[in-house]
């Protein structure tokens, strides 16, 4: 009987320190991966796998966004989006550790970095699952501003899911300082992530855009840009027309 089961593909469970198994665990059993990080187990393996996951998934999302314009923008956005997430993690994780440590939480930068990177990898996986919707928007010729707003919505959902994972992980801890650490991380995460994404734009360009810059010159603030996009989506424009090709 057992031999029969083996012959039809029943094997021992895969080792969960292998990258595909870690990603599967992140999707199916987030409490288990959070517990491993809390216990300080396989932190390097987890961090490495999650960085690679972010790099690959966000490159795919970036390429999908870049396909709205097409051409070299596909490559540009595929390079820049992974940098946004990895940069946000690198800039935000020390804040989580430091705020907690100041209030008496156990100081553990490596575990906090693994946690932040893992939560961002979860968000990146959710975003890559939204890629068909981005491509659908392109296929049905969604207007530029509608595309912008749907992209902001998808990224907001992924960001909230990422933060929820961090919150869940820290709420399982005992001891002082975790509430302030979570609050501080949320604020830093939102500000740094938003500003880094803003600094490395554009990702989504109008199909008729004549020249594709790798980076735009710094202008205004992120808040101004979001309110401008909402006004434009409602048909309220502050200039006569978008830039046209020759």
């Amino acid at each position, binding site marked *: 009987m057992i031999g029969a089961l083996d012959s039809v593909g029943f094997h021992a469970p895969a080792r969960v320190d292998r990258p595909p198994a870690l990603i599967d665990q992140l999707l199916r059993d987030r409490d288990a991966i959070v517990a491993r990080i809390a216990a300080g187990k396989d932190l390097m393996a987890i961090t490495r796998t999650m960085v690679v996951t972010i790099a690959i998934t966000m490159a795919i999302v970036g390429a999908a966004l870049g396909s709205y314009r097409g051409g070299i923008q596909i490559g540009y956005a595929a390079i820049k989006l992974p940098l946004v997430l990895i940069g946000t993690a690198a*800039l*935000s994780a*020390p*804040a*989580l*550790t*430091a*705020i907690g*440590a*100041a*209030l*008496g*939480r*156990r*100081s553990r930068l490596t575990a906090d970095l693994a946690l932040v990177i893992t939560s961002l990898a979860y968000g990146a996986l959710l975003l890559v699952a939204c890629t068909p919707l981005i491509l659908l928007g392109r296929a049905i010729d969604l207007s530029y501003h509608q595309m912008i707003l749907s992209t902001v919505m998808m990224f907001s959902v992924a960001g909230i899911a990422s933060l929820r994972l961090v919150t869940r992980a820290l709420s399982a801890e005992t*001891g*002082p*300082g975790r509430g*302030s650490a979570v609050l*501080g991380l949320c604020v*830093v995460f939102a*500000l*740094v992530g938003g*500003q*880094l994404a803003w*600094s490395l734009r554009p990702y989504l360009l109008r199909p008729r855009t004549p020249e594709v810059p790798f980076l735009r010159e*710094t*202008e*205004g*603030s992120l808040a101004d840009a979001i309110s401008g996009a909402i006004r434009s989506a409602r048909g309220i424009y502050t200039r006569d027309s978008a830039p046209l090709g020759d």
Partner: protein
Amino acid sequence: MSAIAEPLPSYPRGPALALAALGPVAIGAIMAVRAEIASPLIAVPAVVFGVVAATSPALYIATAVTGAAPPLGAVVRAFSVALGAFGIALAGLLLPAAFLALSSTDPLMTFLAATAAVGAAAFLGLRRLAHELVSAGKEPYPGATDIKPSLTSSTVFFVWSAATIGIAGRLWWDLAKEVLS
């Protein structure tokens, strides 16, 4: 003051105090780079440490008068732990603040990022100070009874905190006018 009096995990005091000394200088450097003037390099640490040095004796005197003060040595230790907490918190917030300040074209953003980093670190330092003072009140002398937090001691700490923040805020505002002009 907080009613929680359990001792918190400690950290190496020397490096934490070094961070407390260097953090304000780094914040001053960020503002100096953006404003293209050197004065924030001196002004930021001067505001932080000057205000703490000027107001901390008042807290000891007021709590001692109301009978809520731990021994002087314990108060000094509580201040050094709180300063260390301020330094650690500021070290963690320095990188995001520097990024937000230097990636924006608006000098106001630089000032807001610096203010938020120093303000948040100061708030965390004050929370830690409150906790350390309550902890220090547990058997302050061998055989002595505990000094329990009371409405009076909480009021004294609250008024002292408000005055300290008010003085620092006023000096910070003067610095803002110079940086933003």
